[in-house]
């Protein structure tokens, strides 16, 4: 994986010093809270309901065991012993003291980590496919391009005060594991006429106005990747709405201008930018690529001993096909039954780090579904790995099942939330686990947001739940038919909302409809697409 050189390290160190200085000026009264707020946000520091929250960047979701260990240590030293993995492959600490923030950043900098641009109206951490470099179905490893974009977007002088936040995802497989088309810019590395280039999708997003990004260019040559991104951003910076923060994302600009007019403006700017020499030298990409070269894979067993049914279930559920047939990628579920989705203790984080060192060439990935991946595990090591995970309460065999839900922090932590998400997630996973239905349902992506900002991706859930406030009472809207994958779609609301108990019952009912009418091999989503909303509505409201 990528290693900082002295330049990268210098940039991160400079940022720590800059933040220390900002905190000092805030304390000396030279900065008002209004002036300080966007600065602390650009260093990942939010003020939440009960405490400060610090969001640490994990570029394209890739990290090594030393970095993971540091994250566990910080959880114990500065937080209440937990880290929370997020839907943008980052990690949040929910109980941080402002006076510790600069020291935490300094601890992170020691392991080539930071909290830069994990919040604020700037280009956020670049996300990617969590199986990048390991998956059997990818064209190339997307991470060198993501790293090139990371450097370009770090401290970009023109794009630090955008109309609103800006999220970029990069993938390189037809199968979309990064919700690419629900990002401000989604980039798919593609091949055309024997050459590698990038397809650009611009103007997707969730939030209160969900939109699926249209493709605005099917092929940008790789030696113009940054130039084209810069053109997309400049048009947005100049013409994105700033009169209303709820209409300020690029999706609104693309929607209001229309895809064709936005594209025309980008192409015009691109033609101009090509004269400006903003593209890094071609050798830079070639310098970055070897950092992501394959580790030294060895030939070994191609199958496991399935005599232990619990182990066999975990292998079936939680491993993903690797490009080398003696390896798999193993998913460590952070969704134990009744647990808080995405949470891990400091000790669990260190255990995962150790296991990565032992079994996965020192590498880990964070998934946007709030789980952790060991990308390169030898098939013959799987039983030992599973045994260790199970002992640490990290062995839940539930990837992509209804128990593997995404949930935002909700009203338990978040200052924006209208309703709680976590208790709902906990109760649903307990209920489906107890009834044994999880297994029968197969792939079913449930996503829960505690407010309209949609951090829990409810628009993209096969089943989505949105918590709202109705006259001071938490109320939950149910929606069906969303997908964040390559068949991207937005979920539709079933009808009137439910109480907390009511929505759990409603989830039960819609899954019963599915089990009753599904045809061979259909997932919940497939059945919904075939039969439409009516049968589900009937079960819910008649």
């Amino acid at each position, binding site marked *: 994986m990528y290693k900082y050189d002295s330049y990268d390290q210098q940039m991160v160190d400079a940022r720590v010093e800059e933040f220390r200085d900002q905190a000092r000026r805030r304390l000396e009264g030279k900065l008002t809270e209004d002036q300080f707020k966007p600065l602390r946000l650009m260093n990942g520091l939010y003020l939440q309901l009960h405490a400060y929250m610090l969001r640490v960047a994990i570029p394209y979701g890739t990290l090594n065991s030393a970095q993971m260990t540091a994250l566990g240590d910080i959880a114990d030293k500065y937080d209440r012993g937990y880290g929370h993995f997020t839907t943008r492959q980052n990690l949040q600490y929910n109980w941080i003291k402002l006076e510790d923030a600069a020291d935490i950043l300094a601890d992170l900098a020691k392991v080539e980590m930071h909290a830069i641009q994990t919040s604020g109206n700037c280009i956020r951490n670049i996300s990617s496919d969590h199986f990048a470099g390991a998956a059997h179905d990818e064209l190339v490893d997307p991470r060198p391009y993501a790293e090139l974009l990371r*450097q370009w977007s770090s*401290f970009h002088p023109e794009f630090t005060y955008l109309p609103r936040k800006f999220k970029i995802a990069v993938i390189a497989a037809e199968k979309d594991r990064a919700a690419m088309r629900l990002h401000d810019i989604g980039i798919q590395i593609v091949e055309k006429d024997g050459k590698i280039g990038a397809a650009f999708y611009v103007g997707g997003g969730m939030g209160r106005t969900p939109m699926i990004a249209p493709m605005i260019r099917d092929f940008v040559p790789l030696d113009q990747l940054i130039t084209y991104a810069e053109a997309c951003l400049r048009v947005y910076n*100049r013409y994105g709405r700033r009169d209303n923060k709820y209409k300020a994302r690029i999706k609104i600009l693309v929607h209001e201008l229309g895809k064709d007019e936005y594209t025309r403006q980008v192409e015009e700017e691109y033609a101009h930018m090509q004269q400006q020499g903003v593209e890094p030298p071609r050798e830079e990409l070639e310098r970055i690529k070897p950092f992501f070269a394959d580790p030294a894979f060895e030939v070994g067993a191609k199958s496991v001993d399935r005599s232990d049914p619990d182990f066999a279930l975990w292998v079936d559920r939680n491993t993903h096909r690797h490009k080398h047939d003696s390896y798999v990628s193993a998913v460590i579920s952070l969704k134990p039954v009744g647990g808080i989705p995405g949470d891990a203790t400091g000790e669990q984080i260190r255990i995962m780090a150790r296991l990565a060192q032992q079994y996965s060439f020192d590498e880990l990935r964070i998934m946007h579904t709030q789980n952790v991946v060991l990308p390169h595990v030898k098939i013959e090591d799987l039983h030992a790995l599973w045994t260790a995970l199970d002992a640490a309460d990290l062995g839940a065999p539930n990837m992509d099942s209804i128990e593997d839900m995404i949930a935002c922090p909700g009203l338990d932590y978040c200052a924006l939330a209208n309703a709680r998400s976590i208790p709902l997630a906990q109760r649903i996973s307990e209920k489906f686990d107890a009834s044994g239905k999880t297994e029968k349902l197969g792939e079913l992506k449930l996503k829960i947001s505690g407010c309209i900002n949609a951090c829990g991706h409810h628009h993209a859930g096969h089943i989505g739940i949105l918590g709202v406030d109705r006259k001071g009472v938490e109320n939950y809207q149910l929606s069906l038919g969303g997908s964040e994958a390559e068949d991207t779609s937005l979920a539709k609301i079933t009808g009137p909302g439910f109480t907390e108990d009511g929505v759990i019952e409603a989830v039960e009912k819609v899954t019963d409809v599915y089990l009753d009418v599904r045809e061979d091999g259909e997932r919940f989503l497939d059945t919904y697409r075939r039969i439409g909303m009516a049968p589900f509505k009937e079960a819910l409201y008649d």
Partner: protein
Amino acid sequence: MTDLGTSPDEVQFRFRDDEPADHGTVTADACCDQTNATAVRIEPGDDARTLLPFLDRLALIEVNFPSFGDGRGYSSARILREAGYTGELRAVGDLGIDQLSHMRRCGFDAFAPDKPLDAEDAERAFSTWDNVYQRTTDGRRTIPELRHE
């Protein structure tokens, strides 16, 4: 002409050796009509490209930041420099210490903040970045370029 813009007295930081232009700044719209204007002030919503035919006669372009969180002026500045403008490019308005280094990178060479800034803090801010990742028109060699020299 009105006193639309800032006077040289209000410029707190300047990275040029020539004589500062006096105010007498006109709006971007007026600049297009008034063939003798040598100083212009643009607002966040103005298209900096409307000035491109007149760059030869302009000695001062002020870019107003009514609010520091509105980043359109950064694009305006770069567009002007990319088009070859060499006169004074003055950032005015709600400028803080923490915007200075990026503004400088985008081509601003004079700064007239609404409220004077602490000179020591500003000096530190201008030298925040020993090196930079992105190519702009400030002439600095970027980190990717330095890596492959």
